[in-house]
């Protein structure tokens, strides 16, 4: 059962990378997450949102759709969706160090998402867009 949920739409502007991180960490804060859980989740969200800006809407602007839910087992699900260029080969895209990005992209976005979350699901269709679903259980601080 869902305890809480939100839906957020932002522009593909890089200033919204930080905005999305704050929104997600505020959303999960009632679960009393540890600093490390918060940092992990923020990092994964940051990667997914950055990918929408850098890859999906490269040389253009569009909307980024972010939604989140918390269920009664404290599993947080964050969905990041764009209507950008899509990914032709998802397996290849998820290979560590693979990047089509210019400049300083490290090709590690998906690797970070995979290792900082419990589960990641990527669906994509060329010229239609990409949906990344991140799941992470928040154990929270131990209450004494």
């Amino acid at each position, binding site marked *: 059962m869902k305890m809480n949920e939100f839906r957020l739409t932002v522009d593909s502007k*890089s*200033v919204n*990378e*930080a905005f999305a*991180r704050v929104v997600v960490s505020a959303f999960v804060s009632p679960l009393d997450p540890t600093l*490390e859980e918060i*940092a992990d989740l*923020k*990092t994964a969200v*940051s*990667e997914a949102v*950055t990918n929408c*800006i*850098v890859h999906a809407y490269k040389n253009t602007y569009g909307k980024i759709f972010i939604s989140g839910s918390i269920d009664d087992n404290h599993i947080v699900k964050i969905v990041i969706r764009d209507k950008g260029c899509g990914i032709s080969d998802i397996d290849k895209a998820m290979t560590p160090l693979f990047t089509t990005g210019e*400049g*300083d*992209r*490290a090709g*590690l*976005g998906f*690797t*970070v998402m995979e*290792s*900082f979350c419990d589960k990641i699901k990527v669906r994509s269709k060329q010229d239609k867009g990409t949906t990344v679903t991140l799941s992470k259980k928040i154990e929270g601080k131990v209450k004494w």
Partner: protein
Amino acid sequence: MNVTIESSGNLVIAYLIGEIDHHTATQVRDKIDSVIKFKKPGHLIIDFRNVTFMDSSGIGLVMGRYRLIKSISSASTLEIKNVTRQTKKIMELAGLGRIAIIKETNNDENE
């Protein structure tokens, strides 16, 4: 601004500040690169003490500066200093240890 840069002799030190993501990394990169191109340092130190958040854009930032100093002189070396818990996790994932000397916070500060 998300970086302060010091240089003396053969050494350039870049102190990163705040949140390092794709948005801030672009400005930080331009500022470091202009100093590197001018000073051509043999040793570059990137200090993470005041970094409160970093994603893989920070890795790209480090690797790009590594490539730049190496392209100027293949003998140049890179050092990463005062790495905090969260940034360390990402650096390990990226295997940055292969290209740079990594020193964590609270390691001996004077050398």
